[in-house]
C-alpha cells in the first residue's frame, strides 16, 4: 500500500473518534465482558438478588447443560438444535443461495422485470418487523391464506403451516425477510468485475455455466464468505420470528434468541440469561473465526 500523507493530524483524528469509541465501549465491549461476570451470579431484576447478587459459580451453566433433559422441548439443547436448522435453512440455503441466484440471473440484464423484482425483494427487507409478521400470519393462514389458496389450486391440499410445519414456515419467512442484503451485496460485487473477462471467455466459446463456474464464482469467493459470516450471525441472533410464532407451537420454533428472551425477560432470571448469552456469543465467535480463517486462506491463493 502506498503511503499517503494524512489529511487529518492524529490529534484531530483521535478527537473525531472519541464519540464512536465511547458508544462502542459502553454498548459493545463492556456488555461482552460484564456478561461473563453476570453468568456466575444469581442476578434478578426484583427481590433480594437484584441489589446484592450472589456468586453461584457454575450453577447457571450446570442448569443449562443438564443432559437428562436438555433435548426436551423448551430446553437449551433443543433451542440450539432448532437454531441450527433455522440457520442452515434460512441463512445458508435461503438468503445466501437465493440472493446469489438473483444477482447472477439479473447480471447484465436491465429492464422493468429486474427493477420490479429488486423493489419487491427490498420491500420485504425494509418494512417494519411487526407489519411483515402480520402479513405472514395472513399469508400462511390455513383456510383463507394466499399460500394455501395457491397450493390447493395446484392440488397440494391445505396444510396447517403454523401447526404442522412451524419450523419450515419460519424458515420461509426469514428467507423472504433477508434475501435483499445478499442480493444487493452480490450484485454490487458483480458490477465491479471488468467486462473484458467475460468477453474473452465468450470469444473462446465458453457456455453460461462455464462462465459462472470459472469466472464469476471464483471472483466472488471473498464476497460470498463475508456474506456468509454476516448472514449466519444475523440469522443466529434474529428475534423477528417471535412476532410470527412466539416460539410456538409447543416450543417448536423456539430458537436461542427467543429462549434467551424467555429466561431473561419473562422470568427476569438475568444470571441464567447471561449464561445462555455467554454460550451463544462463544458459538458466534467460533463461527466468525472459522469464516475468517477460510477468508484468509482463500485470499492467500487468489
Amino acid at each position, binding site marked *: 500500500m502506498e503511503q499517503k500523507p*494524512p*489529511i*487529518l493530524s*492524529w490529534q484531530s*483524528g483521535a478527537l*473525531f*473518534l472519541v464519540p464512536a469509541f465511547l*458508544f462502542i465501549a459502553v*454498548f*459493545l465491549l*463492556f*456488555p*461482552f465482558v*460484564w*456478561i461473563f461476570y*453476570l453468568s456466575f451470579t444469581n442476578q434478578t431484576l426484583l427481590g433480594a438478588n437484584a441489589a446484592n447478587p450472589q456468586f453461584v459459580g457454575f450453577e447457571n451453566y450446570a442448569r443449562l447443560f443438564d443432559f437428562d433433559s436438555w433435548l426436551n422441548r423448551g430446553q437449551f439443547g433443543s433451542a440450539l438444535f432448532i437454531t441450527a436448522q433455522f440457520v442452515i435453512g434460512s441463512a445458508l440455503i435461503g438468503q445466501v443461495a437465493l440472493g446469489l441466484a438473483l444477482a447472477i*440471473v439479473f447480471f447484465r440484464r436491465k429492464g422493468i*422485470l429486474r427493477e420490479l*423484482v429488486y423493489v*419487491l*425483494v*427490498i*420491500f*420485504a427487507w425494509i*418494512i*417494519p*418487523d*411487526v*407489519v*411483515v409478521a*402480520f*402479513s405472514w400470519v395472513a*399469508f400462511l393462514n390455513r383456510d*383463507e391464506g*394466499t399460500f394455501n*389458496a*395457491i397450493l390447493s389450486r395446484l392440488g397440494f391440499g391445505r396444510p396447517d403451516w403454523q401447526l404442522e410445519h412451524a419450523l419450515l414456515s419460519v424458515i420461509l419467512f426469514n428467507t*423472504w425477510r433477508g434475501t435483499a442484503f445478499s442480493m*444487493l*451485496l452480490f450484485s*454490487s*460485487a458483480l*458490477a465491479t468485475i471488468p467486462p473484458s473477462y467475460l468477453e474473452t471467455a465468450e470469444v473462446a466459446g465458453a457456455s*453460461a455455466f462455464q462462465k459462472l463456474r470459472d469466472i464469476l464464482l471464483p471472483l466472488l469467493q471473498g*464476497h460470498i464468505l*463475508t456474506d456468509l459470516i*454476516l448472514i449466519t*450471525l*444475523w440469522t443466529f*441472533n434474529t*428475534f423477528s420470528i417471535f412476532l410470527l410464532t412466539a416460539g410456538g407451537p409447543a416450543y417448536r420454533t423456539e430458537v436461542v*434468541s427467543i429462549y*434467551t428472551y424467555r429466561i431473561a425477560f419473562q422470568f427476569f432470571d*438475568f444470571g441464567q*440469561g447471561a449464561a*445462555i*448469552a455467554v454460550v451463544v456469543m462463544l458459538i*458466534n465467535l467460533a463461527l*466468525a473465526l472459522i469464516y475468517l480463517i477460510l477468508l484468509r486462506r482463500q*485470499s492467500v491463493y487468489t
Partner: protein
Amino acid sequence: MKRIKHLLGEAAYYIFILVVMAFFGLPLLWLVLTPFNARATLAVEIPQPFTLDNFQQVLNNTFAVRALVQNNMIIAVGAMLGVTLIATLSAYALSRARVPGSSQLTYILILFSSVVTGTAAMVPIFLIIFNLGLIDTYLGVIVVFIGGLLPAAIFIMRDFVEGIPRSYEESALVAGAAPSRVFLDVALPLIRPGMMVIAIWSFVQAWGSFLIPFILLRSPERMPASIAVYSFYTEAGTPNITLVAAYSLLYAIPVVILYLFVNWRYGFRFFGGIKR
C-alpha cells in the same frame, strides 16, 4: 439445437422471475388491499365494498396515532442524528488520519457487533440502561440504537469516504485553509450523499424495530408503533383485522417513501461492494 437451448434458457428465466415475484410480492399484497376492505379477511381479495372507514377509525385511536407520529418519530430521528454524526466523524478520521490497520479494524468491529447483538446482548444492556436510570425513557432507547447501529454505519461510511478523491482536501490545505475549514467546507459537501444514505438507513432500522423498545420501555404513552399496533386487539386477544392492516400500512409507508427517495436520488446499492 442452439436455438432450442436458448429458448429453454429464456423460458427458465421467466419461470424463475414469476416464482420469485410471487414469493416476494404475495405476502405484501394482503397488506395493500385489506385496509380498504370493509370486511375482515385474511385472504387476498379486491376490497368489497371499498372503504376508507378503517383509516378513519385508526386515526381516532389517539394512543396509536401518538405512538406513530410522536414516539416513533422521536426515537427514529434521535437514532438517525446520533448515528449519522458519530459515524461520519469516525469514518472520516479512519480514512483521512493515519490509523494503522483501519480497514481490518472496521471489519473486526462489524463482526464483533454481529456477535454481541440480539437478545443475548440485551441482558447486560438492559442492566446498563437500568443502572443509568434510563429505563422507560426515549433517551435510553435512542442510545442503545446508536450503540447497535454504529459499527455497520462506520463500516459503510468509511468505504464511502475512501472512494472520494483526496485532492480537493489536499489543495485546500496547500492553499492554507485551517483543518477545521477543510473538513466543514470541503470534505462534508462531498460526503453528504453517504451521510444521507446512513441517515435514512438508521432511521429505517430504528423506525421498524420491535425488540429494543419492547424491552426498554414501560409506559404506554411512550410505546412506538410496533407495540401500539396491539391496541387494535380486542380484550379477548383477537385482532381487529381491518384496523391492524390499516395501521400497519400507515406504519410502513414512511419507510417505503424513504427507500424510493434514496433509490431515485442516489441509487440504492452498496458502495464498491463489501469485501476485504
